[in-house]
């Protein structure tokens, strides 16, 4: 099957404040299949945010090609179709809500698409229901918690009926409760609505349930695979300054002490099992 997202040798350079040319993406080639849940990790300046913006045609590659559902992002005529296909949720929940009432904000996207009012109403109700915010339809955004605001932002994207949702560190500014709310919503959408998810984060725990984890460093993909494959490479991750989930770290240390524990432990329950088996 044709992958829904295809990047071929994507390079992206921008001019820094001092006029230097900086390569934010340095030859990224990547295929993402429809329905996949991909988590991209890497620390600040690794190019993960720049990559996310390429998926929504907010940025276009300096060289190389990005195809979203077969559409080349350099094609101006396809711009709005691409943005509708790949919705984007940003980090700061405050800075992406436009309207003063929740349901009006969710309606913003479909309104921009020029849909008839009854259709917009239907989609708004559906989207709010999917993220579990229907009770707050009439609320003002500034009375909501961070996690709730972020869910409204996701609903705003959902109402445009995208096939892909790109989340650019949506949990970075949230408290643990908000983080869990958002992650559950995202997982639900991936499993039950079949939406392809590209989730960017620096919380390793959020990567555990992904289909695929991609590690970025200096504008390149340095490691990718299932969470188990990626996180068992503790040394590689440490070298580029990234953490592994706490349980994996524990397994790594126990192993170093000579205990017979597999390195690909991701969850507490698995760890319990491994220890019991000793």
């Amino acid at each position, binding site marked *: 099957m044709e992958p829904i997202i295809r990047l071929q040798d994507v390079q992206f350079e921008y001019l820094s404040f001092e006029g230097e040319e900086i390569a934010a993406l340095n030859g990224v080639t990547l295929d993402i299949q429809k329905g996949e849940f991909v988590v991209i990790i890497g620390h600040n300046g690794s190019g993960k945010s720049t990559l996310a913006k390429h998926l929504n045609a*907010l940025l276009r590659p300096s060289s190389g090609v990005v195809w979203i559902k077969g559409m080349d992002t350099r094609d101006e005529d396809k711009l709005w179709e691409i943005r*509708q296909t790949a*919705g984007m949720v940003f980090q700061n929940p405050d800075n992406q809500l*436009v309207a003063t009432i929740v349901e*009006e904000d969710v309606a913003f996207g479909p309104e*921009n698409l020029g849909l008839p*009012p009854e259709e917009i109403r239907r989609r708004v109700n559906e989207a709010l229901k999917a993220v579990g915010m229907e009770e707050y339809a009439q609320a003002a*955004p500034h009375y909501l918690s961070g996690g709730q605001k972020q869910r409204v932002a996701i609903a705003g*994207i959902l109402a445009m009926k995208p096939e892909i949702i790109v989340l650019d560190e949506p949990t970075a500014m949230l408290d643990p409760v908000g983080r869990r709310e958002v992650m559950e919503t995202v997982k639900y959408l991936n499993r039950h609505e079949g939406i392809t998810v590209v989730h960017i984060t620096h919380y390793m725990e959020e990567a555990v349930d992904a289909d695929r984890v991609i590690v970025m460093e200096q504008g390149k993909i340095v490691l990718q695979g299932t969470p188990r494959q990626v996180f068992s490479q503790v040394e590689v991750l440490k070298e580029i300054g990234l953490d592994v989930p706490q349980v994996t770290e524990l397994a790594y240390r126990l192993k170093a002490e000579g205990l017979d524990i597999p390195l690909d432990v991701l969850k507490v329950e698995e760890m319990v099992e491994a220890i019991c088996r000793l």
Partner: protein
Amino acid sequence: MLKDITIGQFFPGESVIHKLDPRVKIVLTFAFIVIIFFVKTYVGYGLIFAYIALAVRLSKVPMRYIVRGLKPLLFIIVLTFFINVFFTPGNKVLFRVWAFKFTQEGLNQGIFMTLRLALLVVGTSLLTLTTSPISLTDGIERLLQPLRVIKFPAHELAMMMTIALRFIPTLLEETDKIMKAQMARGADFESGNLFQRAKALVPLLVPLFISAFRRADELAMAMESRCYRGGQNRTRMKILKATKRDYVAVAVTVLLIAAILLDSYVL
């Protein structure tokens, strides 16, 4: 808390007046303002007073909210009254105090001007009290729609108002945060004279402005990624539709205008 600040002075409710189409309310308020200046008789003022009293009654907005709107203008209203009483030329002198004379014409003029100002304030505050900022913006956008022919940016204007309304609480919250952060480091916003206090606000405004610009940048990006491309081809979820009550309101107002014009200019 700063968060709870209300913008404008909307008094939420479910009354007939609240439910009127905002377009109708705006137009009627304008008609009301204009007609106030055409009234020349006490009977006319009686009619207008009855009209606005009925509207206030129907809106179920407590009287004190209406009166509150008049308070800041009390001084101007009183001043206008006296200026008109003393400086309107006239022949029917009622009595004299020193070099001033009270005339029948002056007194009439003074009372009329006072009534006009008071009615003006009551009429316009009734509009803002019964219409939420959002529907007000909506109404303005749709009323200005025809002006798009002459390239008037009706949609853009309404969008700016909406975003401003949306971000006022956010920025207030942020101001509060920055203020507390600076107070924790010894900043003093409360003592000193007016000039010193204004000066103390500069270190507050700089980070606030920077952050506002950053927010604007991010919001623009978020809007773009949600396919926003101006008012062209944009539809709306909520459509304003005039209902029976709007037609009744218009009819009543037209009757009032007709009666006032008849009373003041024909009879």
